[in-house]
């Protein structure tokens, strides 16, 4: 009764049933490999503890896992269970650890056989034992691809996100019961085959647009400018009286954006997957994002941030359009924060936890009134603002910010008589024909920048301009004259060339002709209007 018994007790106490399950989390857009270690003790006071810096949502996983197992007709063991999320020094968040914890417990209880190949388990459990749509599955797929892990087990609602990646096997799991049957070889889960096209749905091709360009009466020059902007991904600034149609023009632009190419679509899907903005069942995002932000949007909401950095609106508009209506109403800090991402096409956010980089290559559409009352420069109505008020209003938009916008456009009020006439000659082109034009110009650009991860003229670096842009001597002369007469900055000079290139692409011309430069010059910054 003395020594031997004690020793036996000692051994029995530490007799472990340890299981390690692989999963992945992410920091910014970088995946992190997480090992979920589950130990069900043979002896010890019953309890369930999760360690490895879990946050509240993971603490609550205890109750989800417990109930999900019970509802899958498995008796939750009345034993001591310790779950460790390794590496232990990285704070963990999210509901994605539910499935690995549940699988770990089942494996420790020897109720399932783990697959011999390395596999990822990922997903949130529902109390009924089903799996819920979980954000970030696309990133998990990328992590699997990077680390050479073949199998990933993910919720069936989210599986399409990962299915757009080649060389991994995606198992869509509907419920815990189904997964247990699969792992025990009772009934196999059909794996999803690689589908580059993704899945059809509202995010794939169907354009859901409020306005068609044919609905906008007049404003032909504005429509032309929007076409150029959409074709070359140029930032555009619309200025005009209230009710002139600025907002309508901007919203109609969503309908003339070309579809995303393969590379762009993957970038956008990555950001949307991390933000949890991909609806259940959807895969690759095919249509270009069109994001709008109200002027009360916070700096963090627009640029991105947080303790564990999340992408902001500028990143959600990556490869698409960010529409900021009532541009001068945004707070000064918010507007100036746009300067660096507008130039670098990415934003890097540094917090204590580390630094995350989000792509932010967006086309900015900004709309504003010329003065507080809105009627400055209107031919019919008198502006009631004092010069000081006008100056105050316009000085909210700093020079450096304006300098980063390629196209500046006045949107004059439309004659009311024109609105009522049902003259068919006014309805020139609808969004569909304009979109075809834009797609044609984008195809030229895609061919030009193949393999450079530059997709549009607006994103050309100066070295690309030297390499690709062909400009006739006459055009160059005209451009130089303009620079000297108007004292244009070096950046404006290069931007004029980029806009000229887009106009040339739209005209299907191999080099920039003088009339292209002349048109580009129309849209430059007007400081002293």
């Amino acid at each position, binding site marked *: *009764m*003395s020594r031997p018994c*004690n020793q036996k*007790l000692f051994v029995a106490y530490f007799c472990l049933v340890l299981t390690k399950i692989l999963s992945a989390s992410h920091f910014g857009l970088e995946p992190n490999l997480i090992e979920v270690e589950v130990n069900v003790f043979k002896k*010890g*006071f*019953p*309890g369930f503890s999760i360690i490895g810096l879990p946050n509240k949502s993971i603490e609550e996983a205890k109750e989800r896992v417990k109930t999900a197992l019970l509802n899958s007709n498995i008796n939750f063991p*009345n034993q001591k269970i310790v779950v460790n999320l390794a590496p232990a020094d990285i704070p963990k968040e999210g509901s994605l650890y539910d499935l690995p914890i549940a699988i770990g417990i089942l494996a420790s209880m020897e109720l399932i056989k783990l697959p011999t190949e390395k596999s990822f388990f990922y997903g949130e459990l529902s109390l009924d034992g089903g799996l819920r749509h979980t954000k970030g599955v696309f990133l998990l797929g990328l992590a699997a691809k990077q680390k050479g892990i073949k199998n990933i087990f993910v919720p069936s609602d989210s599986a399409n996100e990962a299915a757009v990646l080649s060389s991994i096997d995606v198992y869509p799991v509907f419920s815990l019961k189904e997964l247990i049957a699969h792992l025990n070889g009772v009934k196999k889960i059909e794996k999803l085959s690689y589908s580059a096209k993704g899945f059809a749905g509202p995010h794939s091709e169907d354009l859901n647009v409020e306005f068609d360009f044919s609905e906008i009466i007049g404003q032909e020059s504005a429509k032309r400018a929007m076409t150029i902007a959409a074709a070359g991904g140029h930032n555009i600034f619309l200025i005009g009286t209230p009710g002139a149609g600025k907002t309508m023009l901007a919203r109609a632009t969503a309908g003339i954006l070309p579809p995303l190419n393969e590379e762009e679509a993957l970038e956008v899907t990555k950001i949307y997957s991390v933000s949890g903005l991909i609806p259940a069942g959807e895969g690759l995002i095919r249509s270009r994002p069109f994001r709008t932000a109200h002027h009360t949007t916070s700096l963090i909401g627009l640029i991105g941030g947080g303790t564990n950095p999340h992408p902001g609106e500028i990143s959600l508009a990556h490869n698409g359009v960010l529409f900021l209506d009532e541009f001068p109403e945004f707070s000064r800090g918010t507007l100036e924060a746009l300067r660096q991402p507008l130039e670098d096409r990415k934003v890097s956010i540094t917090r204590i936890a580390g630094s995350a980089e989000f792509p932010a290559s967006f086309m900015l559409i900004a709309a504003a009134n010329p003065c507080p009352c809105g009627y400055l420069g209107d031919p019919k109505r008198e502006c009631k603002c004092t010069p000081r008020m006008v100056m105050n209003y316009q000085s909210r938009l700093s020079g450096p910010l304006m300098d980063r916008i390629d196209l500046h456009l006045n949107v004059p009020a439309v004659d009311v008589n024109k609105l009522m006439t049902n003259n068919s000659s006014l309805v020139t082109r609808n969004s569909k024909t304009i979109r075809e034009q834009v797609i044609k110009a984008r195809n030229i650009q895609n061919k030009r920048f193949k393999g450079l991860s530059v997709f549009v003229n607006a994103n050309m670096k100066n070295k690309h301009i030297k390499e690709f842009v062909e400009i006739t001597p006459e055009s160059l002369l005209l451009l130089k004259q303009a620079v000297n007469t108007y004292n244009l900055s070096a950046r404006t000079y290069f931007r004029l060339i980029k806009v000229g290139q887009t106009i040339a692409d739209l005209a299907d011309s191999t080099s920039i002709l003088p009339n292209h430069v002349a048109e580009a010059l129309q849209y430059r910054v007007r400081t002293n209007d």
Partner: protein
Amino acid sequence: MTKQFNRIKGKDGEEMAAKWLKDRGYKIIDKNNSTKFGELDIIASKNDILIFVEVKFKQTENFGTPEEMIGKNKLMQVRRTAELYLLNNPDIAKFYDRYQIDAVCIVEDTGRISHYENLTF
């Protein structure tokens, strides 16, 4: 089903636990030693260790396991009470260098008796 009834049932449980421990070579030193901080269900000893045993008795597991009723706070209470006991009974305390807290969980309808040694929190 009153507090009184629970108390009687609890006493039954303590009797069962004491018998169970005795059968396994534990020496029972004291039972139901109560102070103003709380009660020590059983004080036992084995292998020169003084053991404070918390007994949890449940008629059925329909409303949760007895183990669930022992949490961090309960253990803290037992520990404080035990410390007070050691102060009040120096003639017992002087024989022991090591102390530990155990729990005995009893479920009446299934007849399950589980003994957990050296609980920490």
